[in-house]
């Protein structure tokens, strides 16, 4: 049992486990100090960061839905400078790779962010392309291959770090988007970001969320996320970080079997702040029961 290893490497980043945290759901890690064991985490993916500080959306920002939640935080963040100058020195002590999730409103902003974050304290950047492309009529970068590819190229050109592209599930053909990402030079693929959804208050006749629509996450989306991981696994050879509704080790194992090289835990952090530790223990136990010693023994092993 003591030989079981969850250690892994993803896009050149050495990780103590294939369990990461999903952007926007784990703050900067500090908020979970009392519950998480950073030595069991593969990486902390911090909140979506932009060039300028952003105050996010007004009004109600979350709504609970059946087995899920909607959010329209609106990328509230202190801006990349504060991250680099104040936050990153503080969270260095966790000795855990830090991946910065970045969002721009133009292609150039992604390049600039990647460049600014090409620093020791940062292990990789993850491109959030679910945000509106202001120059192109506000359509999200991530639902159209061309704009997504320019964003990836802009980031790659400006950093020595691995560039992870986080795919939006709100597309017709996720495999095609993944192939485009591979062609554009991405080093790894995260999926899925949230599904676009909505909730309505039948007493006030108004949308529950201040921003009208929001991103659906949590167990409700797991079947869609798994299907997408599996489709992308068949389409590209890049490493995949699977996420979407992972609430326990069983869910994580489903993603590994479907082909995810690592997983990220999102909404579950809100429900059980120590969930990443529990998933770590659960994976060890599962491998032990199956007489396996290495997490890689199950990755992509779905017989379909």
């Amino acid at each position: 049992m003591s030989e079981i290893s969850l250690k892994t490497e993803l896009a050149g980043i050495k990780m103590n486990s294939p369990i990461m945290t999903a952007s926007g759901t784990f703050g900067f890690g500090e908020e979970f100090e009392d519950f998480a064991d950073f030595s069991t985490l593969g990486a902390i993916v911090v909140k979506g960061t932009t060039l300028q500080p952003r105050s996010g959306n007004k009004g109600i920002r979350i709504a609970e839905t059946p087995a899920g939640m909607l959010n329209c935080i609106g990328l509230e963040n202190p801006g990349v400078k504060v991250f680099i100058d104040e936050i990153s020195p503080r969270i260095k002590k966790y000795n855990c790779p830090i991946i910065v999730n970045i969002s721009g409103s133009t292609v150039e902003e992604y390049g600039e962010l990647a460049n600014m974050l090409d620093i020791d304290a940062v292990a990789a950047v993850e491109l959030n392309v679910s945000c509106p492309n202001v120059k192109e009529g506000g359509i999200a970068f991530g639902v159209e291959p061309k704009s997504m590819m320019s964003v990836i190229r802009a980031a790659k050109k400006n950093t020595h770090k691995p560039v992870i592209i986080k795919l939006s599930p709100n597309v017709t053909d996720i495999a095609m988007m993944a192939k485009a990402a591979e062609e554009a030079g991405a080093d790894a693929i995260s999926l899925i970001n949230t599904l676009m959804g909505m909730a309505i208050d039948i007493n006030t006749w108004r949308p529950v969320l201040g921003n009208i629509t929001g991103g659906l996450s949590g167990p409700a989306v797991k079947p869609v996320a798994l299907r997408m991981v599996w489709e992308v696994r068949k389409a590209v050879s890049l490493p995949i970080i699977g996420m979407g509704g992972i609430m326990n080790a069983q869910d994580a194992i489903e993603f590994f079997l479907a082909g995810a090289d690592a997983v990220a835990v999102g909404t579950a952090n809100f429900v059980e702040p120590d969930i990443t530790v529990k998933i770590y223990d659960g994976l060890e136990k599962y491998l032990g029961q199956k007489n396996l010693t290495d997490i890689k023994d199950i990755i992509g092993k779905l017989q379909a």
Partner: protein
Amino acid sequence: MILHKHFLADGAIIRHEKIGANDVYLLDIDIFTNAESFAAGQFVQLQVPDGEILLRRPLSIADVSGSRIVLIYRLIGKGTERLARAAVGSKVSILGPLGTGFGLECKRPLLVGGGLGIAPLLLLAKRFAGQADILMGCKNAAQMDWPLPLFKNVVKNTFITTDDGSMGMRGFTAEHLPKILAENSYDKVFVCGPEIMMKTVAKITAGHKIACEVSLEKRMACGLGACLSCTIETRQGRKKVCKDGPVFNSTEVFFDE
């Protein structure tokens, strides 16, 4: 104010009963952790038993005793309705204590509560060891059924308002506040209740140049300052109600129009 490490406990329900005719319940939970030092105004994130409800529900700590905490809640929707069915002896997961509590530095405190906002004032009153006065308001006499006995021996003077005048003074708490402030020498007011009430009280105390703290409510996912569901704008910049609050200086916050 003491800062606590957070705990996450499978609490055991010791007592759980309807204490108010208007669907108000009291939940007494053993969290197997010393709760005595929890600050009045702090809250917990309670996981609704049975698994259907995804997100935790924020509830104020209304009282503490040894390793036990008391929560008082009203049935609002799915979560609280489901919670109300939890049996004595069953388990309920509690994350806490969250947020910052009320600032106790003052000599003559007045607590002002409306509806379920009265709940956290119970622990606050106890922290003031009987030296606080309370002004509480409800719709009618019937709704005073639960706070009256709870506050009986923990405050000095009790002022009561009901919207319909069926008990105490007729009208809203805030209408009677100026007179109460004029006739007493309070140096700090603590308010918890509907937003409109807190807003009005904040205005009045500002006029009287009396310190005032308010306890805000916002939808929360994490309760830990991570998800940014609960951000508000304040005069000191953006703050998180779950972590920087829920208690704020009344002069610090902007009440929505």
